Structure formats: C-alpha cells, structure tokens
C-alpha cells in the first residue's frame, strides 16, 4: 500500500549558534503534486530543504519519506529514499562533459572500478530522453547556458530514481522562455508520478505551477493550503505579515524634468552596441532585458568599469571619458552594483567602513589622515536617514538582513550626493517590505531632482518605479516604452 504522503516532516527545529532558523516547521507533501514552499529571504526555506536532504541535522522533529521514518537523515539516505535537491548552483562539475556529469553518480554507485565510455553514453542518453532534453552530450558543461545546466542537474536526479525533486529557486537566472520550458518539464514530471517541491518567492510563478502551497515566516509555518484558496493579496500578507500597498503611487510629470544630465550617443562596448538615450534631472529611466541582454554591461560602462569601444557619453552636455570609478565619482555618477555580496559590500567589515569607503577623500585632511569623529558621524547620519536597522555601527555588515545591506550600499553612494544614480537590480534578494521602502526612496530622490537609472529584469519593479524604460535584447535597444505604455503586458511582450 503506497503512502499518500511522499514527505511528512513535523516540528522541525534548528538553530545555529543562538539563531533559531526553524522553530518547529511542519511540511506535508502529497504524492504526485507540485508543492510550493514560499517565504521571504531568511524565513528558513533553505534550511528546511537542507534538513530534508540530510545536510543539516535537526535539533528536534521527525522526518518521514514515503511512510518510513528517519531518526537521523544523511545525504546518502536521502538520495536512496528518492529525495533529490536541485540547488541554485546545480552542484555539477563545470569542467567535465555532459556525459561525464550524468553518468558519474551511477557508475560510482555501482562500485565499478573501470570506466566504460559506451556505458557512459548509454546512461547519459537515457537520462536526457526522460525529459526530452536536447543537448550535445560531448560539450563541456561550463560552455552551456544556465538553463541547460539546470536540466542536466534534473536529468541526473531522475537517473537516481528521484521520487521527490526539490528545486531551490530554480528560475532565478532563467529567461522567460527558459522558465516556460522548465515549467513544461515540471508538468511532464508530474504526469510521470514525480513529486516536486518548488521553492520560490515569485508570486507569478507560484500561482502558475503549484497545486498547493506552504508559506514560512521567521522559521515558522504561516499557512498550508491548496492553491485555489490562495489569492495574491493573501500571499503578500502571509509572506510579510504586513499590509501595504505594493504599488507605489507614481506621478509622472514630464514637465517637472530638469536639464539633460547624462546622455549616451551610439555607445558601444563589449556586451552591447549602439545604445543611445537621454536622462533628465528628476527622471527615473528603466533599463530592462534578460540576463545577457547587455543591461549590466551598459551600467558598468557608465561607471568606468567597462571601457566603451565606440560612441560617446555626455555629462551635462560635455563629452567625458570615464576611465575608472573615481572619474565617474567626480562626475557625480554612482552605481549600486548587481551583486551585493561580491561587488557591493565588504561583508566582514563594519557598517561604518562600508558606508564611508567612497567618502574618505572628504573625511580626511590633505595628508590622508582620517578624522575618526567625522567618519563615525557621517556613517551615523546615513544609517539614520536611510533607515538601516542595526544596534551598533561597529558590527560587520554581514550581520544585517539583505534589505538592510542593500540600504548600506545605497547610503554609501547617496553620501556622495550623486547627480546620476544607477542601480543594477536594486531589490534582488531583498524582502518585500524593504523592496517597498527602496522603491519609495527612489521616487523621493527623483522628486528632489536626482536622475536615476534602474537596471532590472523585474517587470513589476520597472513598472512601479520608472518613468520610461529601455528594453534591451542581445546587446541592442529593441524597445522604448513611455510612461503610458509601461504595464505588465507591454513589458512582457517587449522582453520575450
């Protein structure tokens, strides 16, 4: 008799040091369904996955897979029980070929000492056939696009007779088209009796793909219900525990714009070509497009981190050559980079240092000697102004939540009083509440006359904040949308 529930975990508790990541989480997944696990960053989603896959040992609670209880789950047992996790980094070997990646596990599991190339190929072909995945088996994995890497990870999971596949934020790096293909595969898998636990915080996806949903907040269950009982408003409320208007009311009034601050004329650099635009004081320009469309490269070239090979950049009507970041800084251009953790912050250093790093020239005397009083005051001012929630400015910035970390990066650049503020993915990995705060702040800054460029692939963000938008595709501007044209439908159409 098959058990109705493929997975049943109860009362899972887990703490790290003094932090309670999970405070008694229950999760029940029925056989053959697609279940969504949602919640904001830091709610315990990743931790519970790692507990289920045997990576972490829970402090309390029970795990049952397919009706069988596991007092201590180890990664090996989890795989044997049919639980497979597709992590965000896919855990594949980039320097090996597709065949090798697919066949290794199987061959190792069979304890074979000798390697047979024909056998390898047979296993690999069988694996990709299961999900109708068409790929060059001899290609090195590192040369493939992200979406293909993900499919390789899924194929490999299926080879191990996965009954439950857990996908951890699988759509983060995918284009719209790739997401569609992934969803087709998920539907296929479901028909073949594979259960999917889909971890996500993106509202549209959750509603599109799931049969039922569990939402976590602060390491606790908030709700578990079939998808039919969930609405968009409820979703936002359960995720954050707050009630708010997710749409910032924006007033687009073209008359209020000031002079042109920044202009690009036929700008070309590795990654994009022939991009032209004008940016006025008080205006928020959106630059949107998929990963690899050249949007990131465009932002880097305006900040001196990527040298243009053609075209012109004009600041307040004068042509400029932005050789490096400090030239950009002197011209009043600031960039909040895409990857907060590796590009934006000095994680183990104090909040003070992270905020004042780009202001040191102003905080010291001509000999390069810093006034520690000025440094502390400057940092305190911005922590307060921008609302970073912290008890002590001496703490490493890594102790802050994603949203507060992003505010620190933002504060660092606002401290320079830029004329042009470029933000690349300003709210990636930021919870809904902080996202709302940041959007509001951007509108306020624009109202005070700052010129802002928001580079983002998040359609709702572009709609909520921008006055106009450029749509980029394969390194070229393929669309220009005015305020009136900016809505979900036109954006979706323009970016596909």
């Amino acid at each position, binding site marked *: 008799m098959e058990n109705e529930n493929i997975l049943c975990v109860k009362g899972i508790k887990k703490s*790290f*040091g*003094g*932090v309670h990541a999970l405070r008694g989480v229950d999760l029940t997944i029925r056989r053959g369904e697609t279940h969504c696990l949602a919640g904001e960053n830091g709610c315990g989603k990743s931790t519970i996955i790692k507990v289920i896959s045997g990576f972490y040992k829970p402090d309390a609670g029970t795990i049952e897979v397919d009706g069988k209880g596991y007092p201590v789950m180890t990664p090996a047992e989890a795989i044997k029980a049919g639980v497979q996790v597709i992590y965000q980094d896919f855990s594949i070997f980039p320097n090996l070929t597709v065949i090798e990646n697919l066949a290794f596990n199987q061959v190792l599991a069979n304890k074979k000492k000798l390697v047979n190339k024909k056998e390898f190929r047979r296993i690999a072909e069988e694996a990709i056939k299961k999900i109708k995945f068409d790929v060059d088996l001899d290609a090195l994995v590192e040369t493939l696009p992200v979406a293909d890497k993900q499919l390789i990870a899924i194929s490999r999971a299926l080879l191990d007779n996965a009954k439950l596949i857990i996908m951890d934020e699988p759509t983060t790096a995918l284009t719209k088209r790739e997401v569609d293909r992934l969803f087709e595969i998920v539907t296929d898998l479901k028909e073949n009796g594979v259960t999917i636990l889909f971890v996500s915080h993106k509202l549209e996806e959750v509603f599109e793909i799931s049969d039922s949903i569990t939402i976590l907040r602060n390491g606790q269950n908030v709700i578990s219900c079939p998808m039919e009982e969930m609405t968009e408003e409820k979703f936002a409320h359960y995720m954050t525990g707050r009630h708010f208007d997710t749409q910032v009311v924006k007033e687009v009034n073209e008359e209020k714009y000031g002079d042109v601050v920044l202009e690009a004329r036929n700008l070309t650099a590795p990654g994009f070509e022939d991009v032209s635009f004008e940016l006025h004081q008080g205006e928020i320009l959106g630059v949107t497009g998929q990963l690899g469309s050249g949007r990131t490269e465009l932002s880097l070239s305006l900040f001196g*981190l990527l040298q243009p090979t053609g075209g012109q950049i004009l600041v307040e009507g004068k042509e400029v050559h932005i050789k*490096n*970041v*400090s030239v*950009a*800084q002197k011209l009043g251009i600031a*960039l909040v*980079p895409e990857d907060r953790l*590796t*590009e*934006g*912050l*000095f*994680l*183990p*250093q*104090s909040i003070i*240092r992270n905020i004042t*790093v*780009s202001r*040191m*020239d102003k905080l*010291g005397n001509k*000999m*390069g*000697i*810093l006034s*520690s009083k000025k440094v502390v005051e400057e940092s305190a001012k911005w922590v307060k102004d921008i609302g970073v929630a*912290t*008890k*002590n400015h*001496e*703490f*490493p910035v890594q*102790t*802050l939540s994603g949203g507060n970390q992003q505010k620190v990066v933002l504060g*660092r650049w606002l401290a320079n009083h830029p004329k042009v503020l470029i933000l690349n993915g300003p709210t990636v990995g930021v919870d809904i509440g902080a996202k709302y705060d940041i959007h509001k702040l951007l509108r306020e800054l624009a109202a005070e006359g700052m010129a802002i460029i928001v580079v983002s692939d998040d359609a709702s963000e572009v709609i909520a904040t921008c006055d106009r938008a450029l749509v980029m595709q394969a390194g070229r501007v393929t669309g220009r949308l005015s305020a009136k044209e900016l809505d979900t439908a036109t954006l979706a159409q323009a970016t596909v």
Partner: protein
Amino acid sequence: MKKMDSNIKRLLIILVAFIIIACVTKPTAFIKIGNFQTMAKQLSEYGLMSIGVGICMISGGIDLSTVYIANLCGILAGITMQDGGNVPLAILVGLVVGIICGSFNGFLVSYLRIPAMLATLGTYQLFMGIAILASKGSTVSGIPEAYTSFATTALLGYIPLSFVVFLLLILAVTFIMSRTKFGTRVYLVGTNERAARFAGIHCNAVLVRTYMLSGLLSAVAGLLSLARINSAKADFGSSYTMQSILIAVLGGVNPNGGFGTIPGIAIAVVILQMMSSYLNMFPGISNYYRDLIWGIALIGVLIINFALDKRRTQRLSKIS
C-alpha cells in the same frame, strides 16, 4: 574595534603568563638586563619584517621576500660604505633599494595579477640572486665603525638604539594603518578587492604602496642587522621568513586578508623572541627541535584562530 581589543588582551595575557613562567623556572638566567638587551636587538630585525609580512597579509596577499630584500639592502649599503665610504649615502641606497624591491613585488601582484605567494617566492629567489652577484658570493665586511657603533649604543644606557627604531616604526605604521585613508583602503582591498573597485578604490595603487612599505621596513631591518653583525651575507637569516609569517598570524592577522593590527603583531614579536630565548636556556633541548616547535606553534595558532573566529561569528549572528 571590540574585536581588536580582545585580541590584544589575549596576546598580553599570553605574554604576562609567559614572563611569569620564565621568571619562576629560570630566575637567574632570564631576569638579566643583558638578556633583555640581546632580545631587544634581535627582535627589532625580524619584527620589522613581520610588520611588512603582516600588512601584505592584511591586503590579502603575503610577502615571502622580506628576508632577501633585507639582505640585498644590507649588502648594497655595506658595499657603499665599505672602506671609508659615505655612510649616509649608503643608508639612502639601502632604503631606496628596499622601496624599489617592494614596489616591484607590488607591481607583480597588482598589475600582473600574479598570486602574491608565487610572485614574492619568485622575487625571493631573484633578490637573493642579485645579492649573491653583488657580494660575489661572500660576506660583505669592513663596515666603518661610525656605522656599527649604532648597534652598540643604547639610549639612556639601557635601551638599544635598534629597538628604538623598531618602536618608532611600529608607531608610524600603526598610525598609517588605523588612521589614514591609505590604511583603511588596505583593509578594504584585503577584504574584497572586487567590491573595492566598485567603491572607487584604485586597488593596484593601494597594493603597490603596501608592498613598497613592506620593502621599506625590510630595508631598515637589513640596515639594522648590518650594524649588529658587522657584515652582510646573501643567505643570512633565512629562517626568518617562516618566523615572520608565524608572528603575523599569532598577532591576529587573518591570512585571508582584511583583518589584523600592528600592535598585535608587535606583541607577538616580543612573545616569540622570549620563547626563543627561553628555549635557549635549556641545553637539553637541542636546536634540532626548534623547527618542530615553531611548526607546532604556527599550526596551533591557526587552529585556535579558526575556533575563535567561529565562535565570534556565532555570537554576532546571535546579536543581530
């Protein structure tokens, strides 16, 4: 800031505990002015090199060539002042050579992106090679007494001048690292070079200056040893390379970059010198054991730092 204090407190406790143990077990040999004077002279030289290694480690790299920069500077200064040469000019030659050697290290590490470990291992060999050629493979001697008397003079009759130089440089570097833009940037580049570039820091310039400073400190060490031993040789003090790394790590420098303080390194220098002198007072412990003991000490310190770091991370995440 809090962390800095706790590290220094820890080192001071070790230091005091060690002095007590030494005084109790070897009262007559250890508590002697002469012993302290000898220690002060010896530690000044590799102490300066340890500071150089330390700042390079803070910047996210390492400098393995300090000893050979010191020897090269000592030899070139020695040749210049030999047989009645100009002493001030010789000192200048030594310092300038140190700066050039250090800048070259910095150039390799920053502009050419060669891993610091390999770059300075290469220049280690290179500087030694130049030193052998310059000294024709033998010892440079015939140093004028006007210069060597520096090593025998003591301030107020007790404090060796070389130790005074060491203290002054410690103060200067401490100030540079904790109170200037440059120092702060070294810490930030050492933490995350990519983020530093995005924040508008000229990482290459910062790194070149860091290695240059290390080269300069090594040059001073070379000049001090030239005065103390009255000669210079291309392969003098090769064991100091390992020792200076040990001192930097013992002093609380994070080998991954971004953390560490100069006073911490200075206290570690004193601790290590005392341990070394103390070991010498036991004829039963052969010199053969020395490498073994230092090896165990380095690994031990690394393990303790790892454990403390882990505890601190947990405590911090609890607070937030």
